């Protein structure tokens, strides 16, 4: 990973998950709302597992 800042979008989505998770935990939201955090987490996982730097190859 020569240029980690290229992956800033990954960090920003992780930031959304962490911030919303922290707020949800802080105000004790029901579990039905907490499970929504799994949706962006799925894409974070796919980004790590299957993402390729197509933009750099153009």
């Amino acid at each position: 990973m020569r240029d980690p800042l290229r992956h800033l979008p990954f960090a920003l989505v992780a930031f959304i998950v962490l911030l919303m998770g922290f707020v949800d935990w802080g105000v004790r939201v029901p579990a039905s709302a907490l499970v929504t955090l799994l949706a962006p987490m799925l894409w974070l996982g796919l980004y790590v597992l299957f993402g390729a730097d197509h933009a750099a190859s153009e």
Partner: protein
Amino acid sequence: MFTFIVEFLSLALFIGCMWHAARYESRAFAQQWFVGAYLYFFIRETIMQVWVQTYIYAPAIVRVGAAPLLLGLLWGSVFYLAYQFARRFVAVRNLMLAALMFAIAASIALPIEATAAQLHWWLNQEPTRTVFGGVPIIAPLVWGGAAVIFYAVFAKVHASRLPDRGKLYAMVTLSPAIAAAHLLYVLALSLIG
């Protein structure tokens, strides 16, 4: 309640995404994307708040006119994050990229919508079917559609032979049309949902 959280989130995402777009795409790309997306949001929300009024924002949210001032930054940022994630999975800009943007934007927006429903950042005026503790069932589709409609216009403008400044003006000029297209899409969704 705690509306500053979503406004802080909007601002932080905007700064990060704008910087990333300016560095890894181009400064012109960043201007066209974020100016176009903000105007799109501003026009759409002004119409929604003044005329349609299917939902209202919490009184504490900072506004310019009828539309929220800082929440507009969230739209362009979520679209940009969806675009960058989709670019990791498909090599060419085609229908598959748009479909991925739809799914990714809807996924990123879902926890924000869930927290918004719990903390009453924005409230539905009309009874609607909800999921995940109060999220209107059409909300993720609204976000996904917003991203795809914006990207469809942006891609056409970006691929045109206009100079960079002309592309920026084109995005500014087309933003009411994008907002109108999205309002029609939301209207069609609300008839179903």
